């Protein structure tokens, strides 16, 4: 039965297309047969004509098939169900965006719900605008470094900047990337639904703006990708002017003479780079005993020597900021410090501004998790290694996934996106487990810091437990021709590996363009490439990538026969 049908009559109730019913969506001159058929189905289906005009083959010839359609729409409980969407993603940040794009590629009908702005934290209040500020700070640093310029034979008169101009650059970049993201999803046919998404029950989500009518949709699979917000410890009063979080700092509404940065992780470090380049003096407040916790200790030590000690920065370690009061009535910002261990009051600071960079807290409020009896852990949604949500009883919630900052596995934009792609692979029938140890991370200071895999202490701990040997190889940027040509010889690359089989456990780079250099190592980890294989790969000369070439070549692997890429190595 190849005749086409027209379903050009409309009814008041809109029934979104399901996987089956969409096959009905054809347009052709009406014929009696079709009319009769449609007439029969009309009440039952309440069918509104899909607006597609492309003709297609009709496969509703069999009664059974028609019944299925009718059954799914009338929702009488008989299987199989049809859904409004194959995949609904709550949260249009980088994670949701990555998942949506991959879902479309896999042929899923996809919708994305966003209660704020497309792009999420990364694009609007995180990585993206901060890179704009760091691009400015990098250039300022170059122009201010007389010694450096002189060594290159350059002469530049005093460099200055216009704060509003810098702020505009960051803002313009964010809106440009936001538009790109929105357009890419629209172009692919992802439905962008505006409002706050709440899970009503299994495979059912409602969304809508506050004060407007709510819409309920069903989906075969749901991904939670609601991200995170800056974490502000208690006792700290954020006023958005003198006591700020990264959200405010990225708007660069002021450049204070003296700013305290609470937390010396990568957010704090990047902002210290921006502020000191623009002329501020910075005081770090770090709860742990050393600055830059989380970085490989050796890299941290070197980074401190380059990024902290010679700059207008001092620091207090091993202390909590127990109370921070914004500037008011001509009084400066007051910070009370207590000892991180004894909780004894230790010191007080009075500064012009304070930036709270103590990390980020998951944003999971209002998601309706109680409707599916999921209990968050410190706000994070518990998931298994396949990002499947685990409920209060430890059971998997079917068809529900959580990616990105909201699950807290690895709070990085690209990790969220990778997790989203992994989920889409799973729901389209291919099992996939993401190897988080292959996800690189970068801190965009000048010079940059990047890392993938384990730090040296982590690797040694693992080696002890599992009984293998660990070796470390290091190369300096001072030995790299391109780095020396740029007069940027300060830097170190470090490889942590198993000498028995050549497995790469971790790579840490501190130096010029480290963030771009790490991918050779992260790809090798992701693909299981061993050192004895990758060391034969050729790098263009002279390039910074030769730093990694040197690194791989300096590793001493005992494995005698190089094994083909991707094959397990026999030991």
């Amino acid at each position, binding site marked *: 039965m190849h005749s086409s049908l027209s379903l050009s009559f409309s009814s008041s109730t809109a029934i979104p297309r399901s996987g089956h019913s969409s096959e009905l969506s054809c347009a052709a001159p009406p014929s009696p047969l079709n009319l009769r058929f449609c007439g029969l189905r009309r009440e039952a289906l309440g069918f509104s004509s899909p607006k597609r005009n492309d003709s297609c083959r009709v496969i509703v010839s069999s009664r059974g098939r028609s019944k299925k359609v009718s059954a799914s729409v009338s929702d009488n409980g008989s299987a199989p169900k049809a859904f409004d969407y194959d995949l609904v993603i709550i949260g249009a940040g980088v994670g949701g965006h990555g998942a949506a794009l991959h879902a479309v590629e896999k042929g899923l009908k996809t919708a994305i719900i966003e209660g704020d702005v497309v792009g999420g934290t990364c694009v609007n209040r995180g990585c993206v605008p901060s890179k704009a500020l760091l691009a400015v700070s990098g250039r300022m640093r170059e122009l201010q470094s007389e010694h450096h310029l002189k060594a290159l034979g350059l002469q530049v008169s005093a460099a200055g900047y216009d704060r509003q101009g810098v702020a505009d650059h960051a803002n313009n970049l964010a809106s440009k990337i936001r538009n790109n993201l929105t357009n890419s999803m629209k172009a692919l046919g992802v439905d962008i639904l505006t409002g706050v998404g709440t899970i009503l029950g299994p495979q059912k989500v409602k969304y809508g703006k506050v004060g407007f009518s709510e819409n309920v949709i069903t989906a075969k699979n749901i991904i939670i990708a609601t991200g995170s917000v800056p974490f502000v410890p208690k006792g700290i009063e954020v006023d958005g002017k003198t006591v700020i979080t990264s959200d405010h700092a990225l708007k660069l509404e002021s450049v204070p*003479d*003296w700013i305290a940065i609470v937390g010396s992780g990568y957010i704090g470090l990047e902002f210290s780079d921006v502020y000191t380049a623009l002329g501020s*003096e*910075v*005081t770090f407040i770090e709860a742990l005993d050393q600055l830059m916790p989380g970085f490989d200790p*050796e890299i941290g030590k*070197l980074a401190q*020597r380059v990024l902290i000690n010679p700059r*207008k*920065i*001092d620091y207090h370690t091993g202390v909590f900021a127990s109370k921070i009061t914004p500037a008011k009535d001509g*009084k*400066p910002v*007051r910070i009370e410090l207590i000892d991180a261990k004894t909780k004894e009051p230790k010191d*007080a*600071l*009075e500064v*012009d501004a304070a930036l709270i960079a103590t990390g980020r807290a998951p944003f999971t409020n209002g998601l309706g998790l109680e409707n599916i009896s999921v209990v968050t852990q410190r706000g994070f949604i518990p998931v298994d290694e396949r990002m499947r949500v685990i409920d209060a009883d430890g059971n998997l919630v079917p068809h529900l996934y959580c990616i990105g900052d909201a699950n807290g596995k690895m709070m990085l934009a690209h990790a969220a996106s990778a997790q989203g792609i992994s989920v889409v692979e799973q729901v389209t029938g291919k099992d996939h487990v993401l190897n988080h140890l292959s996800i690189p991370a970068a801190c965009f200071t000048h010079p940059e810091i990047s890392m993938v895999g384990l730090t040296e202490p982590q690797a040694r701990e693992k080696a002890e437990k599992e009984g293998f040997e660990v070796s*470390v*190889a*290091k*190369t*300096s940027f*001072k*030995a790299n021709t391109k780095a020396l040509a740029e007069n940027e010889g300060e830097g*170190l690359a470090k490889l942590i590996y198993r000498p028995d089989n050549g497995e790469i456990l971790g790579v840490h780079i501190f130096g010029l363009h480290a963030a771009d250099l790490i991918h050779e190592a992260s790809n090798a980890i992701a693909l299981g490439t061993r050192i004895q294989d990758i060391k034969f790969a050729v790098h263009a000369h002279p390039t910074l990538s030769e730093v990694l070439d*040197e690194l791989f*070549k*300096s590793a001493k692997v005992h494995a005698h026969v190089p094994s083909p890429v991707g094959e397990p190595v026999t030991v």
Partner: protein
Amino acid sequence: MSQLLHLGTSFVPSSSTALRRNPTSSPAIHISGNKRTTIQAKIREIFMPALSSTMTEGKIVSWVKSEGDKLSKGESVVVVESDKADMDVETFYDGYLAAIMVEEGGVAAVGSAIALLAETEDEIAEARSKANTSPSSSSPSPAAAAAPEKAVGAPEKAAPVKAAATVTVAKMASSAHPASEGGKRIVASPYAKKLAKELNVDLGNVIGSGPMGRIVAKDVEAAAAAGVSVAAEDPKPSPSSAPVKVPASTGIELGTVVPFTTMQGAVSRNMVDSLTVPTFRVGYTISTDALDALYKKIKSKGVTMTALLAKATALALVKHPVVNSSCRDGKSFTYNSSINIAVAVAIDGGLITPVLQDADKVDIYSLSRKWKELVDKARAKQLQPHEYNTGTFTLSNLGMFGVDRFDAILPPGTGAIMAVGASEPTVVATKDGRIGMKNQMQVNVTADHRVIYGADLASFLQTLAKIIEDPKDLTF
């Protein structure tokens, strides 16, 4: 950085390491033994190793061990940064790290000693005294001169100055910062703290000029410049009207390179900074017969020539406020509310500028007393910061040496400085066609042309000449 090296006579290459990724440096063994045969057997020097064939000097990144630590063969002692990489340096002998001769951050030439290693604990003291007395290296180290405050030998030379500086910068309730809790706490910006450490300035004695009395970098710099100059030993009594003395020329060892003292370093920095200011100069010849007569008359009442000149200058500045202004940010005039005349005083190895505050308002007798008090205080090293760093216009007088004219460098932060030459009997032709004898002195003002223009200076000098040539206003 992974490579471990052994160095010098006491350090040989360890078998475990090789400079594999550093093909230019054959497994870097620094061989320097023969030169140092005089070294006593039990106390060994640790030398700056040659970590690559192109390395001429190395920077001490960090000392892994500290003085007094026991070392055993093969242990890392110090991390050295060469032109190529950072490397751990390890010892080949057991012993004690007796004395560190090049501090962290310091630079030393390849082959120069950076530390002493004692074989037994008893020899530590001996080694230390050795470190303090003998020049660290048998070959003169160019690096020592390059990094004076860190390099070998510098510490003991600098030490007395540092000590003096900390002691003598006047005691002051440190700042009016609300967080200072009455001076108990010191509020200083991160960079100010860093500078204070570098320049050996005790922040407790610095007055903050930042927001809420916070100490900022320039306060520390000012304190360093002023503090050490006061600290310099033996400030010869300055003649009241001519408070300038040649620094004693004794005790200088010829053929040596002597690092700047902290204060000389600060002066050097200030002088270089002054190059960023576009200055110009205007000179004027002023007859001083009337002033000399006045001085003779009131000298017995304790009035000094310095006070008279300061008073005359201040009265002229009242009529030309722009000459008393300064340019702080390159965009605006800062008109100072008071006229504070700073007078440059050279003291042994230093320079300080005691300030006569409100010189236009204070009468000449009080001003003279004040000047005497300031000079006494400077001699006793008790000048307080506001007494040497609040000048709005500076006077520099070299007349007592017979200098008839010179020009002065404008101190950063002020608008103008006047160089005063000697008043000398001169044959002059007068307007009525006669030739006569007059005492004349030449003055030469250096000013910041961003705020003070030629006509401003010219009319200021005209006013000043009028006041000096008819000085009745000076005594009210």
